[in-house]
């Protein structure tokens, strides 16, 4: 399902950003249901179609992979973890404290016809990327036409 495509070579980042506004009208995309969590919950997620399935990306900087959990049940993908503040034991004080810390749980309901058993998650540069391929049964098939 291709709703939009990135096209210009000139400014790919800018193109990406315009998606945000263009996509607002797709917020109620029937394929993606958010369940109990929604925008504003941590971590923020973006969901893409890569042709072979769905890619869920979440910005969760500064995590230990060990304290990051991804689980799937039926059509629901759940990301949980605890983001811990760095040790600042003997600090005399702070000037800025803008970064979010604490326990989080976020779930996303994925479209049907995906194979959660074959999902793969990767954590790199503070980004969690989960790829969920389409189920074999949902892939297009070539049907042979036999001569009579």
């Amino acid at each position, binding site marked *: 399902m291709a709703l939009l495509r990135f096209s210009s070579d000139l400014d*790919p*980042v800018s193109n*990406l950003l315009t998606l945000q506004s263009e996509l607002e009208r797709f917020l109620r995309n029937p394929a993606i249901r958010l369940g109990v969590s929604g925008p504003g919950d941590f971590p923020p997620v973006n969901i893409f179609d890569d042709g072979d399935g769905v890619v869920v990306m979440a910005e969760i900087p500064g995590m230990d992979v060990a304290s990051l959990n991804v689980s799937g049940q039926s059509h629901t993908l759940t990301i949980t973890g605890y983001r811990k503040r*760095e040790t600042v034991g003997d600090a005399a004080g702070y000037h800025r404290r*803008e970064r*979010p810390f604490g326990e989080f749980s976020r779930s996303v309901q994925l479209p049907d016809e995906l194979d959660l058993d074959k999902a793969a998650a990767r954590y790199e540069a503070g980004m969690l990327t989960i790829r969920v391929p389409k189920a074999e049964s949902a892939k297009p098939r070539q049907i042979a036409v036999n001569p009579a």
Partner: protein
Amino acid sequence: MAEQEITAKEKQQVAGQEKTRAGRFFLPGVDIYEFDDSIKLWADMPGVKESDVEVRLKEGVLTITGTVSTETYEKLSPLYTEYNVGNYFRQFELNEDIDDQHIGAVMKNGVLELTLPKGERARSRRIEIQAG
């Protein structure tokens, strides 16, 4: 302090100066703590690799730039989006005297950690009080 419920903040776009590099720039969220002999700064820049961060200190202005790779997104078409993807840029004027020869910078899991040691003049010293 009780643990607050964790929420995601919308990224703030950098206002003001125009950049020569194409693409939008966002302000990374930072924590800045002061210690007796140093200032430590952490900046959240998810999506930025170790090799794509630049830190400069010139005339008392600290500049942090992080570039995200857009390659990842080339073959993806969006179904649902909550956050913007873009580069990061933020500047701070440092009031303190910083020993710029010994600044430490570590980038790990999308978090930049800077250690800015205070120069001799800026270190706080405990003054011994003599009994009168």
